Every structure is written in C-alpha cells, then in structure tokens.
C-alpha cells in the first residue's frame, strides 16, 4: 500500500519533469563512459607495460666487416672481444636476467623471414648482418646501465635500447589517460550540478504536495523518499546505459576489430565487467549524496 503510493508519487514526479530526468540519465551515461574510458585506458597501459617490459631487451650489436660505425674502424669483432663482452654481461647479474646470442646466420634467417617478399633480400648476405647479444634485464628501467657500459666498448657497433622506441608510445598513452580523467572529472561536476538543479526544480514544482505532507505530519523520510528514488532511478538507468555503451565499444571496437590486426594484449569485455560495480555503485552514491544534500537545503521538512 505505501509502496504503491511512493511508486505513484515517483511516477508523477518523473512525468512532470521528464526532460530533467532524461538530462540526468544522459549526463550520468556520459560521465560513466568517460570514467570507464579513463579506468580502461589505465588498465590498457598497465597491460601493455607488463607485456612489453617482459620483452624489452637491450641489443648489443657487434662489429662486422662492413660496419661503418666509428667504433668499428678496426674491423669485425674478434673472439677475445666477444668473450670480454660476455664476461662483463655475466658480472652484471642480477640486473642482467638473461643473455641470448644471435649469430650472423640466425640474424640472416630472421631477416629472410621478415623481408621475404622484398627485393632487398638478394643484395644481403649473412656476413652483412651483425651478430648481437640480446640482454634481458630484471629491471627494464635500468637500461642506461647497459647502454653506458657497452657503448664504445671494443667490438661493439651499436647498443640499441628497445625501451626508447616504446617511450613515446607510453608517453602518449599516459597523456591520453590523463586527458580522459580530466574529461571524466568535468562530467562528474556536470552530473552533480545537474542532479542538484533537477532536485531544486522538482522540489519547487511539488511544493503544494510536500507542503501538505508536512502539515499532515508525514515524516521527513516519506517526504524526501520520492525525490531520492527518482534521482536513483535516473542515475542507475544512465549508468546502465553507459556501461552498455562501454561494453559495446570494447567488444566491437577492440576485441572484434583492432585486436585482430595488432598483436598485443588488449583489454577485453571482462575488464569492463570488472569495473562495473565501481562505475554503477559510485554513480549511485554520488547522485544520492547530492540529492540528499540538495534536499536538506531546498525542501522544508
């Protein structure tokens, strides 16, 4: 009985203020989208960092007969120099997690595979490709240690650090994530202001009913409840739509699309589902808190 009364009051309120209710729903949806994107972008960056840092290596390319780096003026690397480099790498454990050697023959077969359709293949012989030490570090951020130790060492043509190739990518991803968070924060501010304005308007348009409820002795809870529930329904609907849009964006934009052509680990719809409680729950809590505070200010009980 009382439930039916509350429900009919909510329904009347929503109908009377339909445009405001729809606004709250849409703004919540966009807020959830931005916050979701922020969280997922963060997660993607972390996933990619994990993926790449596992694979990042410092490559020490040794001199060949045809190398034209200044350090190779003395000719190709000698056995003694090769041994010296290997011993030095050994001594740098535990920073050096693993060392793999690639001979010129191995380099050539990798090169053949990568450029199998290219005419360049005919001009290159195994002796043209440098052998290398591929160094895996236990702490990839300390690549500078290797670079400084081996650049200019006898027999070393070039020390190449793959991290440097990835740095711009990660810088850009981090900037993107920050940008998304800024947008999300703005949207949350919008949501809060819109919920407050909607409540004020609803309270005003229902002043006759609430006035009589107060006179007749209805408790503050009964008077405030329809407003809170209206806000909650609009917000949950918006959060639900936002979550659905996020899910679809990841499913059809990434999993079925980009992830098929780029061979790195991407976030999936599982990640979206895992942040759903934070998004939906957080949205509801923020909306209800705003509603309650606004009611305290603008609804006399």
């Amino acid at each position, binding site marked *: 009985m009382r439930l039916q009364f509350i429900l009919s009051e909510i329904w009347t309120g929503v109908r009377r203020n339909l445009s405001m209710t729809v606004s709250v729903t849409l703004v919540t949806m966009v807020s959830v989208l931005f916050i979701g994107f922020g969280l997922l972008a963060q997660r993607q960056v972390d996933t990619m960092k994990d993926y790449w840092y596992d694979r990042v290596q410092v490559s020490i390319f040794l001199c060949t007969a045809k190398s034209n780096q200044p350090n190779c003026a003395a000719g190709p690397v000698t056995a003694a120099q090769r041994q010296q480099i290997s011993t030095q790498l050994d001594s740098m454990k535990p920073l050096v997690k693993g060392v793999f050697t690639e001979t010129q023959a191995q380099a050539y077969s990798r090169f053949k595979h990568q450029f199998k359709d290219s005419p360049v293949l005919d001009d290159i012989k195994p002796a043209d490709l440098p052998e290398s030490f591929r160094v895996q570090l236990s702490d990839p951020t300390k690549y500078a240690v290797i670079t400084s130790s081996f650049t200019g060492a006898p027999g070393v043509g070039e020390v190449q650090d793959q991290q440097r190739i990835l740095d711009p990518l990660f810088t850009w991803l981090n900037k993107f994530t920050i940008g998304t968070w800024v947008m999300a924060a703005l949207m949350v501010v919008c949501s809060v202001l819109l919920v407050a304005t909607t409540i004020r308007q609803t309270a005003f348009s229902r002043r006759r009913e609430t006035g*009589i409820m107060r*006179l007749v*002795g*209805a408790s503050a809870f009964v008077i405030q409840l329809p407003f809170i529930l209206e806000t909650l329904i609009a917000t949950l609907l918006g959060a639900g739509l936002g979550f659905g849009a996020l899910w679809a964006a990841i499913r059809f934009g990434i999993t079925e699309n980009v992830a098929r052509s780029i061979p790195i680990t991407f976030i999936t719809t599982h990640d979206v589902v895992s942040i759903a409680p934070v998004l939906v729950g957080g949205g509801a809590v923020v909306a209800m808190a705003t509603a309650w505070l606004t009611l305290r200010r603008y609804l006399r*009980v």
Partner: protein
Amino acid sequence: MIRFENVSKTYPRSSRPALRNVSLEVERGEFVFVVGQSGSGKSTLLRLVLREERATGGQVLVAGRELAHLPGRKVPALRREIGTVFQDFRLLPNKTVYQNVAFALQVLGRSRHQIRQTVPETLEMVGLDGKEKRLPHELSGGEQQRVAIARAFVNKPAILLCDEPTGNLDPTISLDIVQLLDRIHRGGTTVVMATHDVDIVDQLRKRVVELKDGEMVRDESRGVYGSVR
C-alpha cells in the same frame, strides 16, 4: 491542550515583535475564536502551535509537548494530532475530492482498506457525498473549504486550527462552514479559529481571545468581536 506562557515572537528581519508576552490556555474540547486586525499576530499564534515557527521568548506547550525543545524528528508526530484549515483551501488541483482527502491518509501509511472506509465517512460528514470524483476547480468556494476541512479532520486529530477559513467565502456559506466546525468541535475536537469575520463571532458566542499589535488584550468566554464600542 494548548498553553502559551509569556510567549513572544519576533521574525528575523523585523524590529517589531509579532507576538508580545502572550499567555493563554486552551483546554481540551474548547472552541476559541482568535480575533484581531490584520497583522495583530493571529496567524503567528497558529504557526507557533504547529511548530512552523519557534517562539523567541516564553514557552509553548501543545498536547503535553514543550515545543522549544522538541527535536525535529518528533515534529511530524505532533502535527499528526493537529488538523489545519486555511483561507486559500490549499487543495491539490489535479486530484479529485476523494484523492485530496485520501492523500492525508496515504502519506501517513494507512492501508487502502482503512482509506476506503474513512474517506467516504468524512466526506459525508462535511456534506460532500456524491462529489468524490469532482476536481477542485469544479467546486464552489464553500465546497472546496469543506474538502479542506475533510482533509484536516480525516485523521481524527485532537486539535483543529483554522486560519481565517471563511476569508474567501460569502456570509451565508461562511456561517455554514463555521457551523460545520462547531459540529466537529462538539465531537470532542479542540478548535482554534483565527478570524476577522465579525458576524460569525457575534453569532456563535464562543470564547474570544483578542490580539492587538501582538498583545493579548481580551480573553472572554461567550464573547463578541468588538470589545469597546
């Protein structure tokens, strides 16, 4: 039932007090007219009883409760024992007569069964049976006030406060309304009615409390409107 002990009330942005040292006692089951010119403090007195305002001095006791120290969450319980009728009726324009009266019970959580029983009884008592489905704008002024009285009384409050209930009505209808209030009074309800309707007060010869510039200047049982002719 209602006791004012040296009650004063000054509104925040005003220098002149609305009520000044008013002491008054209304027993259970009494009928009291509160008379005076506009601005004499009649409405303020009623608002203090309802705890719509708090007294700035003195003590107000209603139905055993000392209002100054009554916590906010206990005020609804106080108001459930008080029915209020206003000059401008204050009906909900989009609800029928039945729904307007039922509203007062619905917000208090009464069952649908209880409402279906009580509302028709109350409408019959105020003389509106047959008009349940009408909307307020389809009723005359007198009928609208009857709906307001029905709504105020449907919960069987101990006290009925009326703030110039006949202010918008013509003399014949005014008398009908006050006679209805008197019938309710005879059922045991304490009635306090603020008015500046001279004829009504003179005809009914009930207790009259007169306010002038916020002070109580007269308290007469079986009184008339004017004191000094």
